[in-house]
């Protein structure tokens, strides 16, 4: 293959070669690889903030009653935790970091189509994030509505944060439905036009529809790149062609397609028409099928492979396991009779953390461990990475699994306080949260020790184009056009 498509003397993208040096060179870069790292650092900072917020909630919930902050603070914190995690990390996460870093190389390009726009988007992202943070300290304190901002409760919070939020999210996402919905809330507050507030002749359930029409597909926007990462990692560490390439590709499209029509399953108890309910239920069940197909294909790829259980593969296997639990508990919500019981309880909290953290999050960590040598030109310690993985996996399950159980028993979500019978489970969760945090710290330290040996161009034996470049790649990816193999994942 094209191992020598460029000269080895060429400096790597991590070395400043332009007029500007240091931090300035980074802030004005239009190189897709550097922009990817800008995103990686910012996402890491936000993740640490969001994570600390989460840990304070777990600590507050250690016992019934108030530990160290009151309900108003708790409500503001779970709102902020959700906003940061969903909008600043999970939705953009994989796409902006790894999409930016590897996609152009994978398709044999030297950069993205609009490099300046690419940098500009990062500035918008930072601006949006800054505005979110600032709006926490304006008006009469942070909003406490939960990240779903259900009306009419949400229309009673101060106006300024709303206006700011709306702008910020529209900038970040440019997504019409949510944008329009937020505008409607603002119009309602400012001009007293009744959309959602029954006192003004509106329909509060309409808001929920509009919210979930956007937000449920958003869950698939989050999970699809994660599935893409898994589909990269498994073939490499099994040295095998991905099984059912076509089925995997079609499943992605099917998930995206059907995913647009299942939003109603968030609202089975809202009193919506009983005829609409069964349609949403059946569609929710059907959207599970393409996900199941992907799982079968991943596992089939491992069959008769030559399996090297390196950290990226460990994360991929953890992803499959946790994603299955998330998926199966999703079926509980698709089934009408059982959804009534678990709706708005800790069960839902557990379910979406299994999908979003166990799924998207573990895929992200797998991706970091997979492309790390390429990004930084260095290896990390496999042993420490495995230990960190152990803490993360154990901590994660201890943290979220008990929430399924108390959810089934009726413990509602977004509760600052709870009845004594839920104490044991809450305490296990809190310990799990701490173990998870320890795992995160070990993992981050391992990646930033800067002691690892130099990485070769292709440490894992990958077959995609990024592994034909040296680690780290030069500023201009390809000096001569690469030879693209006729078929991806070709291990023949």
């Amino acid at each position, binding site marked *: 293959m094209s191992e020598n498509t460029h000269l080895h003397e060429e400096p790597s993208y991590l070395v400043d070669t332009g007029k500007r040096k240091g931090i300035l060179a980074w802030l004005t870069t239009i190189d897709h690889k550097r922009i990817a790292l800008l995103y990686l650092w910012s996402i890491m900072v936000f993740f640490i903030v969001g994570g600390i917020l989460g840990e304070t909630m777990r600590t507050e919930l250690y016992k019934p009653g108030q530990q160290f902050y009151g*309900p108003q603070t708790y*409500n503001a914190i779970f709102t902020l935790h959700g906003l940061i995690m969903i909008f600043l990390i999970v939705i953009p996460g994989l796409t902006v970091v790894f999409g930016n870093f590897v996609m152009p190389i994978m398709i044999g390009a030297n950069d993205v189509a609009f490099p300046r726009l690419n940098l500009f988007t990062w500035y918008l992202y930072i601006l949006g994030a800054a505005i979110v943070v600032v709006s926490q300290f304006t008006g*009469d*304190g942070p909003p*406490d*509505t939960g990240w779903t901002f*259900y009306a*009419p*409760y949400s229309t*009673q919070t*101060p106006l300024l944060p709303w206006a700011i939020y709306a702008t910020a999210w529209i900038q970040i996402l440019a997504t019409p439905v949510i944008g329009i919905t937020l505008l409607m809330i603002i119009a309602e507050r400012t001009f007293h036009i009744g959309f959602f507030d*029954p*006192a003004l002749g509106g329909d*509060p*359930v309409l808001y929920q529809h509009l919210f979930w029409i956007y937000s449920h597909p958003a869950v698939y926007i989050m999970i699809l790149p994660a599935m893409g990462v898994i589909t990269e990692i498994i073939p490499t560490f*099994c*040295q*095998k062609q991905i*099984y*059912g390439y076509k*089925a995997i590709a079609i499943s992605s499209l099917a998930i995206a397609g059907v995913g647009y029509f299942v939003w109603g399953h968030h609202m089975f*108890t*809202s*009193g919506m028409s009983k005829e609409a309910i*069964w349609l949403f*239920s*059946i569609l929710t*069940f059907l959207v*599970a*099928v393409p996900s199941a*197909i992907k799982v079968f294909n991943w*596992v089939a790829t*491992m*069959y*008769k492979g*030559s*399996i090297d*259980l390196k950290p990226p593969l460990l994360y991929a296997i953890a992803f*499959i*396991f946790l994603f*299955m639990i998330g998926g*199966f508990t999703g*079926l*509980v919500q*698709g*089934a*009408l*009779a059982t*959804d*009534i*019981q678990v*709706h708005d*309880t800790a069960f839902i909290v557990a379910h979406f953390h299994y999908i979003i953290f166990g799924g998207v999050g573990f895929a992200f960590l797998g991706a970091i461990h997979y492309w790390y040598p390429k990004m930084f030109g260095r290896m990390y310690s496999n042993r420490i990475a495995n230990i960190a993985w152990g803490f993360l996996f154990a901590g994660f399950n201890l943290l979220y699994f008990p929430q399924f159980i108390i959810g089934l*028993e*009726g413990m*509602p979500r*977004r509760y600052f306080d709870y*009845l004594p019978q839920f104490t044991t489970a809450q305490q296990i969760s809190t310990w799990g949260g701490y173990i998870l945090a320890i795992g995160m710290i070990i993992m981050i330290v391992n990646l930033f020790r800067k002691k690892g040996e130099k990485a070769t161009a292709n440490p894992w034996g990958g077959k995609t184009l990024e592994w034909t470049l040296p680690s780290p790649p030069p500023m201009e990816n390809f000096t001569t056009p690469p030879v693209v193999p006729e078929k991806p994942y070709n*291990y*023949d």
Partner: protein
Amino acid sequence: MNTGASNFVEGVDWVFKLLFGISAFFLIVITAMMIFFVIRYNRKRHPKAVQIKDNMALEITWITIPVIIVLFLFYYGFSAFQPMIWVPKDAMKVKVIGKMWQWSFEYPGNKVADTLVLPLNRPVKLDLVSVDVIHGFSIPAFRVKEDVVPGKNNYMWFTPQQTGNFEIFCTAYCGVRHSYMGTKVRVVTPRQYDQWLASVKVASEEPGGLQVLKKNACTGCHSLDGSKLVSASFKGLYGKTETVVTNGTERKVKVDDEYITTSIYEPDKDLVSGYSKGIMKSYKGIVKEDEAKMIIEYLKTLK
């Protein structure tokens, strides 16, 4: 006759068992396969991978099986849900009123209680009414839950089949005291129920001021018995000296008619020291002037 705490328990739990059974089966089999492959085809033992061609028949099988399973699960989920929609004609009716952050239950004859008391084995329909934001009415032991949406006539029904006390939670996030918006349902024998109902005061027998406080859910934040909720209790409030912040400067005032009236209509003007603005909203246009007077008269009696 089934044995759950309500008529829905058996049906719903059966669907739970079905779902968890099938899930556990697939979870264990697939996980075991992954672990087996990792060991059996480890690179040390199996240095060269065997490339396998896609097999159409296999893929069609594993598309068809999940489709059949999910359709089957949908059917069971739906049929256990179906009876929750159709309310029997002879169901007794209770109106459930959700208000930040208290539930109250209105029985025929204008009798109002703050726990839900129900007779055993008699179907009951609950009409769910909210006067402010969306709340969620949930009785986990009965496997029922429905949102309480302002302006919508949501409802639920069930037949209690066991005597005892069961928790009621608010499940839709509704503000500061969301997690405290709970009460109990007490299921008793029909005879005990009749006795209880006879002993419930008709709402209009309570002092007028108290009725106004309850109607506006002031009691969600201010207790009447000296305990601290969101804010100070009303007990012993009238006549005491309060430290307040007016336009940023702290001063002392005596709690009198005028002070209470200001507190109701412009709560942020004389802010009780130690609280932040905006927790209590203005009741201008909500509590009428004669109602405010009734509140004041009632507070005078809370020594």
